[in-house]
């Protein structure tokens, strides 16, 4: 089922908005994570980790979920499909991996925020836990370039399923049946 052109445009705008906003939010989160790691003042470190917890829960998680959902709508509502083209499959896989790693990080960030609320953090406190958001945010930011690049370049290559569907559509066209309009 394909969406009508107006709805398709709106869904595309929503998907681009969620994806680009995720990029910016993760970049801001990375800056906070580095500031928290390097902070020499306990008050500074505490303020940073409380802010990070708020940012990740109220901004980054909803944005990633939004990008994932709008991406699904965009692929299922157009002739690109979800598993017809390799670049769509790759993009979906990377987005799901980013979402899983993000969810796994939430408990550690919440732990730092709880500790920051209880008292000012000394530079040596939670050394390993403070490295984690830096490493994961940097990795996440790098990973987010993959869907961005795939969306722009759209490297060629159909999956077996996509090829079969394209063959069926071709037969439909030759036998006079209506087919979906290409994106």
């Amino acid at each position, binding site marked *: 089922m394909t969406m009508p052109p107006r709805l398709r445009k709106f869904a595309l705008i929503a998907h681009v908005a969620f994806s680009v906003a995720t990029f910016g939010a993760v970049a801001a989160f990375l800056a906070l994570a580095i500031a928290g790691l390097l902070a020499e003042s306990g008050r500074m470190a505490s303020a940073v980790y409380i802010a990070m*917890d*708020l940012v990740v*829960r109220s901004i980054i998680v909803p944005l990633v979920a939004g990008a994932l959902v709008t991406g699904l709508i965009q692929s299922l509502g157009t002739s690109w499909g979800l598993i017809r083209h*390799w670049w769509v499959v790759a993009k979906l896989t990377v987005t799901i991996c980013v979402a899983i790693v993000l969810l796994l990080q939430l408990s550690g960030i919440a732990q730092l925020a*709880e*500790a920051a*609320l209880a008292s000012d953090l000394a530079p040596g406190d939670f050394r390993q*836990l403070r490295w984690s958001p830096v490493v994961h945010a940097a990795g996440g930011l790098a990973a987010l370039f993959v869907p961005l690049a795939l969306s722009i370049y759209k490297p060629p290559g159909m999956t077996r399923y996509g090829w*079969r569907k394209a063959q069926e559509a071709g037969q439909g066209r030759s036998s006079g049946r209506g087919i979906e309009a290409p994106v």
Partner: protein
Amino acid sequence: MRESDSAPGTPRWVKVSAVVAGILLVAAISAAILSGGKHSPWRHLLMSSGIAGALTADIGAAGTAPFAGRAGSDRILRS
């Protein structure tokens, strides 16, 4: 020109990406094992379920309350 009846093979860029992803996965697992298992995704899962007392020894050493498996921001928003 007649189209081929056989399905196309997997493109080279997909194969290369899969190999790179596999190498990164192995590197991540190796890093988790070399760090004594203290930093792996399972650690976060265990913490969420509240059964990782031994793994959160560094938290106790820092003199703060052990993680209770809930969002810090919930408390922040309420306070």
